[in-house]
């Protein structure tokens, strides 16, 4: 609702690609009567409704919770991961961030490790593989001592929570010129290294996750900090420094 009720006309340039093996191309669409109060994905819903009614193939894009927490939505919008607003996922971006007559370029995440399934949908299962390599505490169900048995300084718990806020959307990879996954990987390594429960295996964890990250074709960090700037959850780049410390510790002290 808001106060802005003037509707907008937009020129959309959208990446269309039928399947993983298709070459793909940018396709132009005009969309009229877009309400500024619609979310960006509702704008795409509106386009798709029109395409379906015209007997055309709707644009495939990933999305689910539409409240900024599941990490499913993606999209490079005018060259920015998740669009122009800071710390905002695409699903929480609203059309009031754009103007009548704007041209909006919409592309998928582009990285070697994320092949395209269709249109704007990419395969991010590489992130799951990295977690499976070591992004956990090796504790089985039932092995836990009382939750208050080990006090954790509030400061550390808060820092761990800051890192744990990562939603795994991969904006960091998409906006990095090296397609590096370091912000994602370091966020998990930091969260667990900051807590006594995760500290016991922190060296092995860092080594295993970094090795898996390299194996899957992600690039290296050259300190551009684009990842931090595009992160919808404000994950701090200092986590990468902590990851490097854990990794080096592992290299120096492991047998």
């Amino acid at each position, binding site marked *: *609702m*808001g106060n*802005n009720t003037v509707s907008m006309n937009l020129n959309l340039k959208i990446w269309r690609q*039928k*399947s993983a093996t298709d070459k793909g191309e940018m396709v132009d669409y005009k969309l009229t009567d877009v*309400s*500024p*109060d*619609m979310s960006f994905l509702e704008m795409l819903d*509106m386009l798709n409704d029109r395409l*379906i*009614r015209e*007997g055309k*193939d709707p644009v*495939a894009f990933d999305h*689910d*919770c539409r*409240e900024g*927490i*599941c*990490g*499913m939505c993606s999209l490079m919008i005018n060259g920015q991961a998740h669009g122009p607003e800071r710390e*905002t996922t695409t699903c*929480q971006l*609203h059309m009031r961030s754009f103007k009548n007559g704007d041209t909006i370029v919409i592309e998928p995440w582009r990285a070697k490790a994320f092949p395209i*399934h*269709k249109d704007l949908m990419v395969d*991010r299962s590489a992130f*799951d593989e990295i*977690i*499976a390599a070591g*992004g*956990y*505490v*090796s*504790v*089985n*169900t*039932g*092995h*836990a*001592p009382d*939750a*208050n048995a080990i*006090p*954790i*300084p*509030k400061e550390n*718990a*808060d820092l*761990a*929570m800051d890192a*744990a*806020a990562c*939603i*795994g959307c991969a904006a960091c990879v998409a906006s990095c010129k090296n397609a590096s996954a370091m912000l994602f990987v370091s966020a998990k390594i930091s*969260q667990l290294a900051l*807590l006594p*429960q*995760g500290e016991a295996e922190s060296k092995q964890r860092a080594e295993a996750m970094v090795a898996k990250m390299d194996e899957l074709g992600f690039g290296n960090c050259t300190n551009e900090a684009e990842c931090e700037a595009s992160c919808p959850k404000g994950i701090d780049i200092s986590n990468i420094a902590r990851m490097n410390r854990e990794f080096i510790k592992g290299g120096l002290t492991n047998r």
Partner: protein
Amino acid sequence: MTIKKLDGKVPAGNVSEVWDNHRFNMKLINPANKRKFNVIVVGTGLAGASAAASLAELGYNVQSFCIQDSPRRAHSIAAQGGINAAKNYPNDGDSIWRLFYDTVKGGDYRAREANVYRLAQVSNNIIDQCVAQGVPFAREYGGTLSNRSFGGAQVSRTFYARGQTGQQLLLGAYSAMMKEVGKGKIKLYTRREMVELVMVDGKARGIITRNIVTGELERFAADAVLLCTGGYGNAYYLSTNAMASNCSAAWRAHKKGAYFANPCYTQIHPTCIPMHGENQSKLTLMSESLRNDGRVWVPKKPGDKRAPNDIPEDERDYYLERKYPSFGNLVPRDVASRNAKEQVDLGKGVGATGVAVYLDFLDAIKRDGEDVIRQKYGNLFDMYQRITDDNPYEVPMRIYPAVHYTMGGLWVDYNLMSNVPGLFVLGEANFSDHGANRLGASALMQGLADGYFVIPYTLGNYFANEKPNEQKVGTDHEAFDKAYNEAKDKYQQLLSINGTQPVDYYHKELGKIMWEYVGMSRNEEGLKKAISQIKDLRKQFWKDVKVPGENTNVNVELEKAGRVADFLEIGELMARDALERKESCGGHFREESQTEENEAKRDDENFCHVAAWEFTGVDNEPIRHVEELKFENVKLTQRSYK
């Protein structure tokens, strides 16, 4: 048509000893033999991820399926508030018994006592487990865990991780699960949708899935199938559920014989951001803690279009404070929701659509200062402003109720097994623990209780007694061919209709019927109307839906069509269940059954039971079976909030 009296199989004995005794009495599987059993787990939310991880750790071979691109994205992730446990760390009088008592009462006495007691018992183990996994719960300066009071509870028993408790608990369960994926004990299948349950000799022995990327229908066999697939709130189209949340796995199991219990029990949450227009795709919930300081009001005059701050104090109706002087703005969720609808129906709704009420913080800001309010609710105010473009520090928020959770689900016994042997149902997908109304911070508790601490025991007992591994069933069994062909035909049919209206049109139309007649308040006439309108809409759907593309690639419309076809069936059952349950209880309010104070009035003499429906064909009358509920420990009373 014979009505069965269902047996919940609760072992005899004192409620506080039942689970411990049962754990001892259940049979075990030798560690070396566990690897001979295969388990399918559908869904990777709190229930599914915790079950998959725990079963794999025990040595079973687990196949895990999720609809998203990663198991970390299941909708449990969106829970904000927290998770209850009876730790009594704050020393404020909490106990397992009190959590049990509050949960039974909060459910308006429509849940099984023994299930709820077990839930309260294992709640403490859940917190221990999550901390051990590295879940960063909020802490005090001394390093101990922080607790808060939630949803009107008189004790502080809620553990939380900022406003993202669901996310952190899910990531904990996800990491436990990925640990087992790394070891090869769980085989993970993402972007898969379960489309059929496969039964052999009356037992659940496998599933057919659709691969969302390739369109391929795939077969998976196992010794047991666990459905952890969430609720059916998206039958209303607009809800706080995620876009892909659906009832299809549960519904297709229902069509294969699993009873569906209490489908009319839905929870409608009072503090959601109202819809902005026809293109709205989902609704966003804001924590109900907002009602601690916000005052709910509407203009006294219907159709008053003035800006809220231009409406003088004496022309505002603070209707909750007026009608419920002792609880005021803090009345329970269902009462707050129904009253908002009543004001809107009287023409007093606010905002451009007229379908909202004000939640005003200006008095609280005057009293405590903007800084204090910002500290308490800053993140919620930011979220509100991001979505609506209004600044709630300056103008009142607009709120309206939205469908949030479904207490009904597939019927399960005390062991979480449905009436179909080998088919287990966990988390929101089952009906078991919340009765007719779920308390805040209890959903996360139930999902994890089922997955971490109940199913690892009860599944082993099933395997030890039934020995399904002795009759190996492969995917070449004719039952798989049959289920495969059913699924294939259904998709073929949907693609061949080539009508005029897209899938969303039908979903939205269904949502309107559900919201109007099977929403916050229900009556006989409306429910009958709903049943007949849904039948008509379903017919129209199968004649006129337009699904473009083919079944050999990503086809989002085809996926949605399959799900909406199921919503068009479950919607009717929800209305039917609401019609038959002539009492009001919890989230189910029948206008014919209310107290003089307009409160939900239960009819314990005739409805102190679970209704579990048996499927008899899409256009046939289903059969309503009952499971009597006995209350030996909790006294049945009538609620009052005056």
